[in-house]
Structure formats: structure tokens, C-alpha cells
């Protein structure tokens, strides 16, 4: 029998249903893997006792013929999702010791369907970052290393712990969130599948808020099928989130027909950047050839406002963050640093509770929302956002999906990028999708010259994750990406 931790989510599900192994065995195998992978720093909180308790309950349900769709499957949870009775920190010092008295809707849906919680996964502080270096709990290490010098690399961010844990086989899947690329970029940099659904597909209730008009939860898994299975459980209307979509959740797995004949795929010329590494461009070209060979129709399209998406994002997201993060005041939860009066208590608490990147974004957000600048920055950015969305609407009149690279580069070393704006450019291909509220998926598609994974991104129409999954499944099949990192950390 293959090692239980090498099974994909769907294979593990089938094995449990066929009683080839027990949920307790599957969970224990992953707990053992976690205990050997401490140096990856993927977890903020491990919950082995809870996991074994949940797995035992799953075994009883499987025996009784009452298994849910995710029964007995070990999942990791990004530490941005509130979990009742388990510390939730958003990887920030300011949420020190915060133990929610409630469960986020997305995680509640997973437990309802039988999933097993392995623990809470490291991420950039308040999901602000593209390398997982801003976490109060320290950086996450990418399971993949550079071939030439064996250098340790970042896993991407902000869902770096989720991506590393799934790539290193510490869990079969993980929840993540994506505000500007935080699921798809780490997915690409660790060689796994990352899906950001349509805005509103998953409830945001109980997820620590970053930028409310952009935040969306989604899965990180090792296969497209696994993402389809996980999304079906995560998604759904929630009366507690007015922006959650009141639409039926389709059986996404059924959408994986493997047939893209006649599907129209758009290639946006604006994503061809000056100075983009040759291997990224070559990968994109291979993706085009794969889809063409599978019977899809390829056409060039134009998304003329693409280059404005990132600067507009860095107005909208910090503005919303500065408002959302106003709640951390040292009164109701988390850290409190004393001061002579209440204002000084607030200022001391927030000065020592927030890290440098969070402070930068809160200050930028405060500035662009302050009197006299609101129209020049915030309203201007929201107008540009309308133009970006219009670009996509016009393109989608003629195509069903859009194919792009996921990132402009492979994984880099910690400390290699220190300039904030250079770091922001890592999200250049993913951020447009959040600005327009669309679904997007990153599929591992090849290796760089340094032996590092690279991803291709498909972008779909709003509400149409089914077509997205169908295209992604064909891309995955054609890419035959079956490389896995060596377990050097064990």
C-alpha cells in the first residue's frame, strides 16, 4: 500500500469509503508527518487530540453508513478562520491568545461534512503579504528548494502555511483566503492547485477581515478534483453574510468531464510583460498548445486596464483594511499595552501588536480615506475598478475562460525582496481577478530551470466555477505535473 499521506483528497475519500483504511489511521499518518515537519513552520497551532477525536467519530459514521462528503479527511485551516475553542491569531501579535466563542461558516460547513481538523496554519499577518514573511510566528519554508544552491525559499503568501502543508503532505487539503492572489500565488509557488471562487461563493462570516470587498475563501489541494470536492462543502448561502451568493452550489466534481472541445479560451496580450522570464512565457505557450490540442479554440483578447489593477488594489485594499483593523483596540480581545489614558493605551497596543507591513497598509489606508484625499484616491481607484470589471465583461462576451501565468516568477528566498512595491508586483497576474470579483484557479504546470514549480491561471466568468474546473482539469491532465518535493525536512 502506498504511504497514506501520498493519497490525494479524492483517493483518501475513496479509500475510507471502501474501508481500505480507517479515518484514525489516515489522521495518525498525517499527524506523524506534521510532527516531523516542524522546520517548515506551517502550523501556528496543532490540534492532534481534536483531530483523533474527530477521526474516531468519522470511523463510527462510516461504519454506520452515515458518512458525509468529507468524512474522515484531514484538513488544515488557515489561521484567519475563527474556530470555536481553538486559538485564532491571523498570525498577528495583536490577537495573542484569542479563542473564538464561535465557528466561521466555512469551517462549520467542513465539519458538518465530516472533515477532520489538523490545526491552524501560518499565514502573513492579517493575510497582508506575498511571501509569508510578515507572520508574527515567523516565515513558512517552502517544501521545494532551488536546484542550484539548495536555498530555502518562501512558499508565497498570504496562505503560505496552507500551501506548504498541502505540498508537504501534512494534510490532504487546506482552507485559504485570497484578497489579491493569496490562494493562487502560493499554490503556484508550491506546485499545488489553488482556487479563488467568485466573490460571495463562500461566506466571509467568521473569517478575520482584511479587505471586505475583495476577500474570498477557497481551497488549496493537490488536484483539481480535490479542489472541486472541497469547494462544494465550503460554499453556500449564509444569512450571516449579506454578500454571500443566494445560489445553489453545483456538484463541481461532475463538471470534470475532461472535454473542452469548442471551449473558447482568451489570451490577454497585456499579461505579456517586458522582462518577464523566458520560462514563464514558454510555460504559457505550452498551456495554449495543450488546450488547443484538447480541442479548445484559442483567441487573442485585450484587457486594456490590466496595468492599473495593482495600484488601484493598493488603494482599495489598505483603505478597507484600515477600517476593518480599527477593531483591534486592546479592549475586547487580544493584546493590551497600558498607557496613561485611553488614547495612549490604543496607540501603544496597536504599535506593539501590528507588524511593519500591517502598519504601512493601515497608514496608507488612513491617508487615502482622510479628508481631502478621499476622492483623489479612493473614489478614483473604485472607478478604475469599474473599468477593470468592464474589460472582463467585454472579453467574456467572446470567450469562456482566460489563460495566463499565475505569477511572474518562481519561489524566491526569504529576504530577497525587501522593497514593498517590488513585493506587491508578485500579485500582478492575480489581483485583477479580485478587483472584478471573478473566479480563478492556479494549476501546477511545469518546473523552472531551477526545478521549482510554476503555475498557469485560468479565469472564469462570475458564478461559473464549473467551466473553470472543466478547463483546469484538462490543463492538469495535459501538464502531467507529478513532481513532488523531496522530504528533506524530515
Amino acid at each position, binding site marked *: 500500500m502506498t504511504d497514506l499521506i501520498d493519497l490525494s483528497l479524492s483517493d483518501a475519500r475513496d479509500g475510507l469509503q471502501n474501508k481500505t483504511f480507517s479515518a484514525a489511521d489516515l489522521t495518525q499518518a498525517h499527524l506523524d508527518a506534521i510532527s516531523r515537519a516542524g522546520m517548515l513552520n506551517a502550523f501556528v497551532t496543532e490540534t492532534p487530540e481534536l483531530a483523533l477525536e474527530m477521526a474516531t467519530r468519522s470511523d463510527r459514521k462510516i461504519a454506520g453508513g452515515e458518512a458525509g462528503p468529507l468524512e474522515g479527511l484531514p484538513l488544515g485551516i488557515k489561521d484567519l478562520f475563527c474556530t470555536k475553542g481553538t486559538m485564532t491569531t491571523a498570525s498577528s501579535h495583536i490577537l495573542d491568545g484569542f479563542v473564538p466563542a464561535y465557528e466561521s461558516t466555512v469551517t462549520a460547513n467542513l465539519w458538518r461534512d465530516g472533515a477532520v481538523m489538523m490545526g491552524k496554519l501560518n499565514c502573513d499577518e492579517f493575510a497582508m503579504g506575498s511571501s509569508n514573511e510578515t507572520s508574527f510566528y515567523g516565515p513558512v519554508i517552502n517544501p521545494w528548494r532551488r536546484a542550484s544552491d539548495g536555498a530555502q525559499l518562501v512558499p508565497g503568501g498570504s496562505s503560505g502555511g496552507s500551501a506548504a502543508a498541502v505540498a508537504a503532505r501534512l494534510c490532504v487539503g487546506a482552507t485559504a483566503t485570497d484578497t489579491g492572489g493569496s490562494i493562487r500565488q502560493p499554490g503556484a509557488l508550491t506546485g499545488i492547485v489553488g482556487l479563488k471562487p467568485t466573490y460571495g461563493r463562500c461566506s466571509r462570516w467568521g473569517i478575520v477581515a482584511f479587505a471586505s470587498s475583495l476577500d474570498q475563501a477557497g481551497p488549496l489541494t493537490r488536484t483539481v478534483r480535490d479542489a472541486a470536492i472541497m469547494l462544494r462543502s465550503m460554499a453556500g448561502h449564509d444569512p450571516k453574510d449579506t454578500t454571500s451568493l443566494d445560489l445553489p452550489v453545483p456538484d463541481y466534481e461532475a463538471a470534470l468531464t475532461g472535454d473542452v472541445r469548442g471551449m473558447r479560451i482568451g489570451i490577454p496580450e497585456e499579461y505579456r510583460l517586458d522582462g518577464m522570464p523566458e520560462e514563464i512565457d514558454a510555460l504559457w505557450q505550452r498551456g495554449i498548445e495543450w488546450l488547443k490540442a484538447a480541442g479548445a479554440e484559442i483567441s487573442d483578447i485585450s484587457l486594456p486596464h490590466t496595468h492599473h489593477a495593482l495600484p488601484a488594489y493598493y488603494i482599495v485594499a489598505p483603505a478597507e483594511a484600515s477600517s476593518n483593523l480599527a477593531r483591534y*483596540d486592546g479592549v475586547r480581545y487580544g493584546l493590551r499595552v497600558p498607557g496613561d489614558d485611553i488614547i495612549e493605551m490604543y*496607540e*501603544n497596543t496597536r504599535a506593539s501588536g501590528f507588524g511593519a507591513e500591517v*502598519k504601512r497598509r493601515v497608514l496608507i489606508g488612513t491617508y487615502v480615506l482622510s479628508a481631502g484625499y478621499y476622492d483623489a484616491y479612493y473614489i478614483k481607484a473604485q*472607478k478604475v475598478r*469599474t473599468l477593470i470589471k468592464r474589460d472582463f465583461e467585454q472579453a467574456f462576451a467572446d470567450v469562456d475562460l482566460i489563460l495566463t501565468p499565475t505569477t511572474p516568477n518562481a519561489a524566491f528566498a526569504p529576504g530577497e525582496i525587501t522593497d514593498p512595491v517590488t513585493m506587491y508586483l508578485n500579485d500582478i497576474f492575480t489581483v485583477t481577478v479580485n478587483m472584478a470579483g471573478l473566479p480563478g484557479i492556479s494549476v501546477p504546470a511545469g518546473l523552472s530551470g531551477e526545478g521549482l514549480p510554476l503555475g498557469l491561471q485560468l479565469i472564469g466568468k462570475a458564478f461559473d466555477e464549473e467551466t473553470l474546473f472543466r478547463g483546469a482539469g484538462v490543463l492538469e491532465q495535459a501538464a502531467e505535473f507529478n513532481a513532488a518535493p523531496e522530504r528533506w525536512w524530515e
Partner: protein
Amino acid sequence: MSVDQATVRHIARLARIKVSDDEAQKLEAELSAILAWVEQLDGVDTDGVEPMTSVVEVEMKMRQDEVTDGGVPDDVVGNAPKRDNHFFLVPKVVE
């Protein structure tokens, strides 16, 4: 537009974040660089364009105006760093 140290201190005050002299100096450069970069949007023609208010086309949902949750004061104050029974404690604000 670039920001000076006085502006950094002003917005830090608005954001209720204490900044040291060293931090203010560093932030002056960093925030100015970010603002200079986002100002490329000035070149985008947005005449007659509506600012986005909702990213997906959905009907505003209404709900009954009724209490659906509550009665859990222990939960509400359970995480407070300082509390007295069911009250949050803060430094004195009224003389």
C-alpha cells in the same frame, strides 16, 4: 504626492498607532514611494465612470428586524484582556 514626517505623525495619530522617530523617518520614505506608485492612476481617463460599489450583480437582501442572537455575555467578554463581571475595563475617560 509625497508625505512629510508631520503628515506621517498626523495619520499615525488618526490610526491610533504610536510611531517612534526612527519609524516616522522610515515610513516617510516608504509611504511616499507607495503613494508615488499608485499615482500612475491619475493618467487613467475615468470621466463619466461610476465608482464600483458592488463587485457582483446581486439584489440587496432584506431580513426581518428581529433579534436572532445574544444572551451570551460570558462569551462576549471572555477574551477581554481586562474585565469586571460583564464589563470591559478601560482607562478612566471621565474625570
